[in-house]
């Protein structure tokens, strides 16, 4: 299974991920996920931006480990992940994930598996910025 990932300053865009997973004519399905900054969380309704920080070397190695686990569980051809660092404003996208396979069924399960693991393991840190302050966030579902 082919694996690609990168960190980008500013918003993430889908084009690079798609280009990494459509690897040849054996691909029959591509599934893409985009995570977007929303204005509300559990406590507040005035989020104006998120500030992301990453541990770049471990970001890559941890995503590689998750990809290996996915290769054992699902019939995938490729996965690509692009995640933002720095400040991402309300409405902008901070993460893009694309997976490809011969058939659609495994792509849905694989993408959900990846997102759960991303939020548990991959060293990305998030600070929520409000109109009157900011706070680092704990682990989320």
């Amino acid at each position: 299974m082919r694996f690609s990932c990168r960190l980008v300053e500013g918003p993430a865009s889908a084009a690079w991920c798609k280009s990494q997973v459509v690897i040849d004519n054996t691909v029959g399905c591509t599934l893409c996920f985009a995570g977007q900054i929303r204005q509300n969380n559990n406590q507040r309704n005035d989020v104006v931006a998120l500030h992301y920080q990453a541990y770049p070397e471990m970001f890559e190695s941890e995503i590689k480990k998750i990809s290996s686990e996915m290769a054992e569980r699902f019939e995938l051809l490729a996965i690509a992940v692009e995640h933002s660092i720095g400040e991402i404003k309300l409405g902008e996208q901070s993460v893009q994930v694309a997976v490809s396979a011969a058939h659609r069924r495994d792509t849905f399960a694989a993408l959900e598996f990846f997102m759960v693991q991303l939020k548990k393991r991959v060293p990305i840190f998030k600070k929520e910025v409000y109109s009157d302050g900011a706070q680092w966030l704990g682990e989320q579902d």
Partner: protein
Amino acid sequence: MNLTVKLFGELQELCENSSIQLQLPAHSCVGDLLLIASSQYEIFNNRVFRVAVNCSYVDNSHSLGDSDEVAFIPAVCGG
């Protein structure tokens, strides 16, 4: 041995530095490292974080070496 510990997120902000230097006895483990870090920096007391060595999460019994890359990893929340 002298170890550099990388800091991220809230830990980096509270320490006002992206890393700290700690002096440890030879053959120390991660548990020893945490005790020394907590004794020198109050911010590490009563705060939940994981430890990574050479880009892998480890537990307190993991042995440390001079050339290890060590990081304190606060709550992660990608996406």
